[in-house]
C-alpha cells in the first residue's frame, strides 16, 4: 500500500472521529462569543472525565458514584502544587494524575471485589469522604474558602490561558483521550474488559486476570478524571469544595448513562447534551437543570436504556415494525 492509500484508508475508517475533531478544533474560528467559547472549554474537561467513567462503566461494567473525588484530586492537586510550591502546571498535573492512579489502585483492590449496589455505595462513600476532607483539611485545602490564583498552562512561554489557546490545548488532549479510548475497543485488553463485564467467570477461565483488569481500568478512569480536574482549574484559576459534591458525581454518571454506556461515543453525546441542555433550559429556569437531568435518567433507563447512541438502532427497529408489521415480527422471531 502506498502512503497515500494508507492515509485515505485511515481517514475512511475513522471518518466520524476525524470529522468531529476537525469541527471541534475549528470552532474558535466561527464561534466568537467568549461565553460560548468558555462553555466549550468546560465541555472539553467534562468530556475527559466522562470518557474515564464511560471506560469504567461501559467497557469494564463497573460503577462509580464517587468519581468527583478523582476530579478533585486533579483539581486540588494542581491548585495546591502550583500555588503553594510553585510547581510547573504541567508537572503538577502529572503528579496529581499519578496520585489519582495510586489512590484508585489502593481503593480499587478491595472495592472492585464488590458488586452491584455494594460497589456503588463504596464508591459513594469514598466520594463523600474526600468531599469532607476537602472542607476539613483547611491547612491543605483552605477549606470552604477555596484556593485562588491558580496559574494558567503555558508551553514554551506561550500563555495557554487565553480562550483560543486554551480551547486548542484542552480539546487537543480531550481528543487524544477520545481516540485512545476508541482504540481500546478493538484490542486484547478491550475485549477482555467486555468479556469480564458480561461473564466474569468465563473471562477468567480464558486467562483474563479479572481483578487486575478491573483495578487497572479504575486507575485509568481516575487518571482521566484527574487530568480533567487539572485542566479545569487551569482555566478558571480558582477552586472550592462546592464543585465536588455527590451531585457532581451523579451528574457525571448521568452524562455517561444518557449518552450510552455501551459506546465510547456515548461519552461525547452525553457530555454535549449535559453541557448545552442547561443553556436551553436557562430560558425557563436555571433551577430546573438538575431536575431535568434526574428525570431524563429515569426516562432513558426505561425507554432507551442504551442511551443516545442507541437511538439509531431503536429508530430502525420502530421503523421496520411500522413499515412491514408481519415480516418484522418474523424477523424478530
Amino acid at each position, binding site marked *: 500500500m502506498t502512503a497515500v492509500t494508507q492515509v485515505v484508508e485511515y481517514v475512511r475508517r475513522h471518518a466520524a472521529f476525524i470529522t468531529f475533531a476537525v469541527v471541534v478544533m475549528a470552532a474558535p474560528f466561527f464561534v466568537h462569543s467568549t461565553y460560548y467559547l468558555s462553555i466549550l472549554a468546560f465541555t472539553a474537561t467534562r468530556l475527559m472525565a466522562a470518557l474515564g467513567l464511560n471506560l469504567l462503566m461501559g467497557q469494564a461494567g463497573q460503577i462509580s458514584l464517587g468519581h468527583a473525588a478523582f476530579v478533585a484530586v486533579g483539581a486540588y492537586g494542581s491548585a495546591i502544587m502550583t500555588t503553594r510550591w510553585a510547581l510547573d502546571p504541567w508537572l503538577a498535573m502529572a503528579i496529581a494524575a499519578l496520585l489519582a492512579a495510586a489512590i484508585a489502585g489502593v481503593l480499587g483492590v478491595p472495592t472492585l471485589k464488590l458488586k452491584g449496589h455494594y460497589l456503588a455505595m463504596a464508591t459513594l462513600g469514598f466520594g463523600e469522604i474526600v468531599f469532607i476532607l476537602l472542607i476539613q483539611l483547611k491547612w491543605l485545602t483552605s477549606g470552604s474558602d477555596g484556593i485562588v490564583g491558580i496559574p494558567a498552562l503555558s508551553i514554551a512561554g506561550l500563555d495557554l490561558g487565553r480562550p483560543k489557546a486554551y480551547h486548542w490545548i484542552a480539546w487537543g488532549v480531550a481528543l487524544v483521550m477520545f481516540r*485512545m*479510548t476508541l*482504540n*481500546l475497543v*478493538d*484490542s*486484547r*485488553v*478491550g*475485549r*477482555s474488559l*467486555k*468479556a469480564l463485564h*458480561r*461473564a466474569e*467467570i*468465563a*473471562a*477468567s*477461565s*480464558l*486467562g*483474563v*486476570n*479479572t481483578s487486575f483488569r478491573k483495578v*487497572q481500568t479504575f486507575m*485509568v478512569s481516575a487518571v482521566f478524571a484527574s487530568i480533567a480536574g487539572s485542566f479545569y482549574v487551569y482555566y478558571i484559576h480558582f477552586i472550592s469544595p462546592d464543585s465536588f459534591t455527590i451531585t457532581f458525581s451523579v451528574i457525571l454518571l448521568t452524562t455517561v448513562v444518557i449518552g450510552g454506556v455501551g459506546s465510547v461515543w456515548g461519552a461525547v453525546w452525553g457530555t454535549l447534551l449535559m453541557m448545552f441542555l442547561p443553556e436551553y433550559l436557562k430560558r425557563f429556569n436555571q433551577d430546573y437543570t438538575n431536575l431535568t437531568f434526574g428525570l431524563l435518567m429515569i426516562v432513558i433507563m426505561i425507554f432507551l436504556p442504551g442511551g443516545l447512541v442507541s437511538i439509531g438502532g431503536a429508530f430502525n427497529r420502530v421503523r421496520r415494525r411500522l413499515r412491514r408489521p408481519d415480516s418484522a415480527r418474523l424477523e424478530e422471531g
Partner: protein
Amino acid sequence: MPILSVQGVSKRFGGLEALKDVSFALYEGQVKALIGPNGAGKTTLFNLISGMDRPSEGHIFFRDRDLGRLHPHQASGLGIGRTFQHSKVFDDMTVLDNVKVGRYGRGRAGIFSAFLSLPRHRREEREVREASLGALKRVGLQERGSEPAGNLPMGDRHLLEIARSLATEPRVLLLDEPAAGLNNEETEQLMGIVRRIRDEGVTILLVEHDMGFVMDISDEVVVLDYGKKIAEGPPLMIQNDEQVIRAYLGDDL
C-alpha cells in the same frame, strides 16, 4: 506422569459434602468421562480443577503443579481450558470476538499498546484474528464469525465455547455437558470434533449425561455418586458394573 492427577479430593460447602476422597488420573492423549447422577459433584470437581474453588482436602496436580492455590486465569495459563454447563458465551459480542477473547493469554499487548495503537498491538490483532478463525474452523463455525453470539442455536453455542477454549491452546480441555440439548446429528458432529481435538494432542475430560456419547468417545470412565467415586474403567466395564447400574436406576445406559 499423568497430565492431571486428582488425589484424595474432598469438598465441603458448609454441612454439605459435595466430594469425598475422589482420586483418579488423566493421561496425556486420553478422553476420560466423568459421569454420575445429578448432584454427584461433577461440576464441583471441574470448578476445582479449573481453579474456581479450592479443595477442602486433597490435591489436584497438573503434571507437577499443585492447582490448589491457583486462580482461574492462572490455571488457564498452565493449559487448562473449560466449557460451562450453562453456556457462558458473550451474547452481544460477535462469534469471532468471543473466540478472540480466548487468545488473551497468548498475547502481550497491554493497555498502552492499545491506547496508542502501537505496532505490537496491530501485529497481535492480525495474529489473533488468524488464530481465532483457525479455532472456529476446528469446530466448523468459520462461516458465522460476524454474527452476534446470542443468535446461535444451543448446539453452536457449545461449539463456540469449545472454539473459544481451543484458542487458549489448552493441554487439557474440560467439557461440561457439551452434548446437552443436541439432537443425534449434532451429537455425531460433536463426537467427530472431539476426536479431532484429541488427535491434535489435547487431553479431554468431559462430563456428560448422554451415555451413548460417553460410551462411544471415552477411553475411560469415572463414575461419581454422592461425591464418591464408585467405579473407574473402560466404558464396557462400567456399563456392566452393578454399583453403577444401581446408582443410575431409572437412567438409560
